[in-house]
């Protein structure tokens, strides 16, 4: 591949600064004492401490899974800071009270933190290291009956709701990293949409890891009651460190009868440098339960960052006629590794799912799609359509597809399509011979490739995601 294309795919990371904010930090290491420390810091009720301790004890019996198609040195779980919160921690009533240093950080990141920007229609919950800093636009949401804020607040203000749903989709012992998260999660977002309410604006959470060697373990829970609708956006960045940081989040979604949850992620955690030093290990469990009839959960993810991305946003299609969707763009460059995909578990009859996955591998990176489509014995007339496309840029990157299909009902229809393509010299030359430079050519090819996924993103996120792909690959996507 030519030198120009090389330079295009080697754009520097723009969120790699560290904010100098005094932090309230737990000592490194994990023990029951750490967990009690976190729980006490957050003033949690006894049942939640028990939830954590139970998860921790279970975690101790578990082994770190090694089946994904990624390579990394063993993680020393005693070398991680499990709690780091920016000071001061006084309760904030309005945006003006946010630490100016923090505000400048989010301004640099381009987060619409100000009220006037929030007027654009996005309510933002910001998670800085471990703790939710502020939630904008609470009033208008409250008028609609929507509860949206940090998990800590929800535990305090709506303990019954949290207790009713927490761990019902991803049980504390579900997997190694979910168990770890259940033990040490420090904050996250909680969102509850009451019966029949269409959430009046897009909800958004912005995650940032700031402290070196801190892990981020946030926990998100979204519940949509009968006939409710919510669109939720999640964005993430982290500063540059030479060490690796662990991000092990859990996201649980619950959709009751005819409810719809649309969950979109633009993930741009620090990916490490060109040699693979540093970067985030993004080991996340995301799962949605379509509990009610005709409910719908739709995951859209644009994964561009992290040294390693390892996640499978999934749908359990329990309610009759429920629908699960997964739209994904995963871009890897340099030494990045991604093993990502989805699970569609069809339990109820007439359930439908759709998987559109687009992997882009550049540099010396490795990008795998791994997905499971499971049709249970009672899932009469279940339908799945999967399409997994890979695009290779340059000659040193790799792409793999691991589709698993398990069908236990003969009336089911499952379709799977996969393609692999390569941005080749001939294609680029074709553009050039028409006067179009290489940068614009790559941009147009990539945009064409990801189009089916980007149309699923809310408008402003689609713009941000396009910009991000641009930063990763060249300068003018968008």
């Amino acid at each position, binding site marked *: 591949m*030519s030198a120009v294309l090389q330079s295009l795919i080697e754009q520097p990371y723009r969120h790699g600064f560290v904010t100098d904010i005094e932090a309230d930090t737990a000592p490194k290491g994990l023990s029951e004492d750490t967990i009690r420390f976190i729980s006490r810091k957050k003033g949690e009720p006894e049942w939640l401490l028990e939830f954590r301790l139970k998860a921790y004890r279970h975690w101790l019996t578990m082994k770190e899974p090694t089946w994904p198609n990624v390579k990394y040195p063993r993680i020393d779980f005693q070398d991680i800071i499990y709690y780091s919160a920016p000071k001061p921690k006084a309760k904030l009533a309005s945006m003006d009270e946010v630490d100016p240093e923090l505000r400048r950080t989010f301004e640099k990141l381009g987060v619409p933190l100000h009220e006037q920007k929030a007027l654009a229609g996005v309510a933002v919950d910001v998670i800085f290291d471990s703790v939710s800093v502020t939630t904008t636009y609470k009033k208008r949401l409250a008028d609609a009956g929507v509860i949206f804020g940090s998990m800590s607040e929800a535990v305090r203000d709506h303990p019954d709701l949290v207790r009713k749903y927490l761990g019902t989709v991803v049980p504390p012992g579900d997997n190694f990293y979910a168990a770890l998260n259940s033990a040490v999660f420090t904050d996250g977002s909680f969102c509850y949409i009451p019966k029949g309410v269409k959430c009046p604006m897009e909800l958004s959470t912005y995650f940032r890891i700031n402290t070196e060697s801190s892990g981020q373990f946030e926990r998100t829970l979204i519940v949509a009651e009968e006939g409710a609708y919510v669109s939720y956006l999640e964005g993430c960045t982290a500063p540059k460190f030479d060490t690796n940081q662990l991000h092990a989040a859990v996201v649980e979604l619950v959709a009751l009868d005819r409810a719809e949850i649309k969950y979109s992620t633009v993930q741009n955690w620090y990916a490490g440098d060109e040699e693979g030093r540093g970067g985030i290990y993004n080991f996340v469990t995301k799962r949605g339960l379509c509990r009610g009839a005709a409910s719908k959960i739709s995951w859209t993810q644009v994964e561009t960052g992290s040294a390693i991305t390892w996640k499978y946003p999934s749908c359990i299609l329990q309610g009759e006629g429920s629908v699960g969707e997964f739209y994904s763009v995963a871009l890897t460059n340099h030494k990045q590794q991604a093993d990502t995909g989805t699970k569609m578990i069809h339990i109820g009859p007439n359930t439908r799912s759709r998987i559109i996955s687009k992997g882009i591998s550049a540099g010396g990176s490795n990008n795998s799609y791994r997905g499971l489509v499971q049709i249970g014995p009672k899932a009469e007339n279940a339908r799945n359509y999967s399409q997994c496309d890979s695009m290779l840029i340059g000659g040193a990157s790799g792409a793999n597809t691991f589709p698993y299909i398990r069908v236990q009902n003969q009336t089911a229809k499952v379709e799977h399509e996969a*393609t692999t*393509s390569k941005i*080749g*010299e*001939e*294609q680029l*030359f*074709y*553009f*050039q*011979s*028409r*006067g*179009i*430079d*290489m940068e*614009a050519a790559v941009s*147009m*090819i990539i945009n*064409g*490739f990801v*189009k089916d996924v980007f149309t699923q993103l809310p408008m402003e996120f689609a713009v941000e995601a396009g910009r991000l792909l641009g930063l990763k690959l060249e300068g003018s996507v968008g």
Partner: protein
Amino acid sequence: MIRADARILLEVRNLSARVAGIEILKGVSLTVRAGEVHAIMGPNGSGKSTFAKALVGHPAYEITSGAATFEGRNLFELAAEERARAGLFLGFQYPVEIPGVANAQFLRLAYNTIQAARGKDELDPLEFDDFVREKMQLLGMDPAFLDRSVNEGFSGGEKKRNEILQMALLEPKLAFLDETDSGLDIDALRVVANSVNRLITPDNAIVLVTHYQRLLNHILPDYVHVMDGGRIVKTGGKDLALELENRGYDWVAGEAAAA
């Protein structure tokens, strides 16, 4: 049309080039003036396609010696896209497929890029749609090709029409058409040739690269050059093409060797 006083567009002197380490062109010279139609003929592997690709800047072809100027500018100092903006065009023998990129989008980007380079107005998608449909009609192309991915699933003939459509849109000063007749049935050939003929003006020029004579029944060349072994071994008028059709290429090569 030959006019001795016409402006020189392309001047190639002793051009040698190689691909993957193998010398393909071994000293080719050619002068093309405004208003002229040239045909470069020759057996397979004689270097005719290489000559066109090397001049428009294909990255696989390495220039080892010689010079080429286009309207006085040194071609080899320009990137491929700059040569296109300067007015060079290549109609590909095998146009590449670009999945996921809508033809309409691609054509508009190409058109606007060239327009901008000429200091002319660009067109928005709606304006462009009207504009391109008109051009397509002349080529007998179904407008449905606008919504399809560039060249993807196009038949050989459809790809060739799409190339000539681009030529019609970009209005190059000098167009190389590489085996444009291959893959076309006789009716399609006539349509494509008519379109090309309409694009010929006293200010531009065309170089047809072709193995067979049949295209030259429809687009009349002012000069016919025969290439063999990486050199132009004979140059003549349009009658030379007919002679080649009757006698094959061997006699030219033999004549050149004897000389």
